[in-house]
Structures are given as C-alpha cells and as structure tokens.
C-alpha cells in the first residue's frame, strides 16, 4: 500500500511531462509546411500583368512580364522581359522595358540588370525621350532612374551619350555623369 502511495506522484509527474512534450510537438507541426529549397523558386507565374491604383482609383503602376518568380522568404520578385509602366493621373509618365529584372516590394526599387530602355512619351510641349543602357535602377516612389553604365539617349532628332546618368523624371532633370556628348539636330 505504501509503495503504491509513493508511486502515484512519480507517475503523475511522468504523465504531465509526456503531455507537455506532446503538446509542444503538436503545436509546432504544420500540416503542409515543408522545408523549401531557398535557391528554388517558391512561386512561378507566366504571362504576368500586375496593376496598382492610386488612392483616387486611377492607374498608378502596371508591370507586365513574360515570367515572374519568387524565392522563399524573400521580398524580391524576379522577372523576364519586364515592362514597368508608371502613370500620373492615369496618364503614362514613363515605362521601362528590359530583358530581365527584379522588383523589391518593400523598397519599391526595380533593378533592370540587362539591356533596358526607358521611354518618356512625347507630350504637348516635349518630344519623346528614350534612355538606353545595359542596366538601370528605378526608384518607383521618387521616380528616379539611374545607371553607372554607358548610356545612350534620344530626344526628338537629337541624341547623345554619357557614362553614368541620373534621370529625375518628375523634375525633368537628366544628369550626365561623365564623358557627356550630344548632337542637337533641328
């Protein structure tokens, strides 16, 4: 009798311990969670068109791509033949067409890491501007495009080149960082 009397608390501790371990394991177990390979895309989409609207409901940004993919736990999306279009009051302000690129949804920065063409359409008092480079970074919040590479630009019949540029689209400022050349044609 005495033995069972002493055995009961030990058994009770043992059972409680087992119960705690079991509950811990169960609470962590996620039915479909499997360890993803960080170097393999978690999501792949073909023929993508993503659209963003401004608070007034007008078209603000459109991203068209042949293919888009994303790696596990990363905020960057990768694109093949992306066409990033930026609108102002629903009117196309500029768009950048590249061979490939990536977009960070947290910083809102787009990086075109291969040949890319930035086009600002003609307006009533400005001719079309085209900027072509081998890579380009675009801040889609401040609407600034820049590159350190050799870049060619075309403005109406005039054309030019430079090594490195910064283009502040809203201010209409194009800075040519070095080896600047331009040919004005009427």
């Amino acid at each position, binding site marked *: 009798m005495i033995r069972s009397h002493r055995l009961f608390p030990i058994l009770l501790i043992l059972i409680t311990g087992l119960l705690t371990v079991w509950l811990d394991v169960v609470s962590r177990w996620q039915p479909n969670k499997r360890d993803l390979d960080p170097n393999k895309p978690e999501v792949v989409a073909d023929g993508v068109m993503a659209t963003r609207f401004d608070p007034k409901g007008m078209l603000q940004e459109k991203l068209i791509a042949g293919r888009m993919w994303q790696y596990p736990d990363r905020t960057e999306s990768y694109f093949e033949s992306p066409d990033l279009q930026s609108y102002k009051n629903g009117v196309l302000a500029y768009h950048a067409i590249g061979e490939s690129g990536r977009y960070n949804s947290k910083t809102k920065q787009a990086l075109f890491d291969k040949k890319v063409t930035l086009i600002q359409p003609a307006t009533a008092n400005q001719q079309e501007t085209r900027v072509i480079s081998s890579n380009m970074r675009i801040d889609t919040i401040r609407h600034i495009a820049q590159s350190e590479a050799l870049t060619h630009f075309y403005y109406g019949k005039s054309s030019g080149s430079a090594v490195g540029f910064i283009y502040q689209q809203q201010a*209409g400022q194009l*800075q040519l960082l070095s*080896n600047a050349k*331009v040919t004005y044609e*009427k």
Partner: protein
Amino acid sequence: EKADRDKPIEISADRGNLDQLKGVTVWQGNVIIIQGTLKLNADRATVSQDKQGNQTMQATGRQVTFRQKMDGKNDWIEGQANQLDYNTVTHVAVLTGNARVKRGNDLVIGNVITYNTETEMYEVSSGASSNGGRVTAIIQPKPRDNSPAAKKPDGNAP
C-alpha cells in the same frame, strides 16, 4: 561660314545637366562645341532653347576660344575672351573680357567685341572696364596688285 547654321551642333564635355522643363542644358569640364566649321572650347557652357528651337549659348572659362572658317574664303576668324554669348536668332557673338578677334591677318583687341557671324563684321569697345581701357586694331594693308591689268596707261600702279 553661313552653311554652318544648318549643321547639327555637337557638344561634348565631362558632365552635362539637361533641364527638360526649362529647356536649359549646362555642360561642364573641357567643353567642346562644333557646328560645321565653327569650333568653340570653354570650361562651361549653358545652352538655352526656346519653344521654337532657337538657342542662346553662354560659354565661360579661363579662356573661351572659337574658330570659324570665313564664308567663301580660305581664311579663318578666331576669337578668345573670358566669356562668349551667342544667339542663333541674331547670329551675334559677344566676347567679353580680354577679348581678341583675328580675321585673316587683321587683329582687334578690346574688352568687349561684338561679332556678327552673318555679316562677319565686328565692333570692338573698351566696354565698362574700370580703367577705361583702350581698344587696339591691327589692320593689314591689302597686298598691292601688280598685275598688268591693274597698271594705269602712264605706267604707274593705281
């Protein structure tokens, strides 16, 4: 020469800044501007373009120099100054500060020289310089024409 006007303008420099909204471009560092036979060198050049495409250009530097072939002749006109302002409507270049213009063998020196690239005429003044500087002009005599046709019946040259 006159044909230069219709030629493209080529500008090269270390750096450039284009302001599309104002139509103003600023070029800095070893600036070279070429239009036909006209060639200009400066440290800095500001080119403004109005809606009609007319341009005004201001070039500054330790020494702005330009060179242009004269119309229909194998002669050149060369100029230098601290500052050069040019207007594509009036075709007038104003050289200011230690200005010199050499046309063929003729040379004028002053503080301000106004040169009309259309008429190839220039006007030199001492400008508003404080010491009331003087102007200098060295005009080479035309070479005497000794050909027979030029001689008078009495045998003397005209």
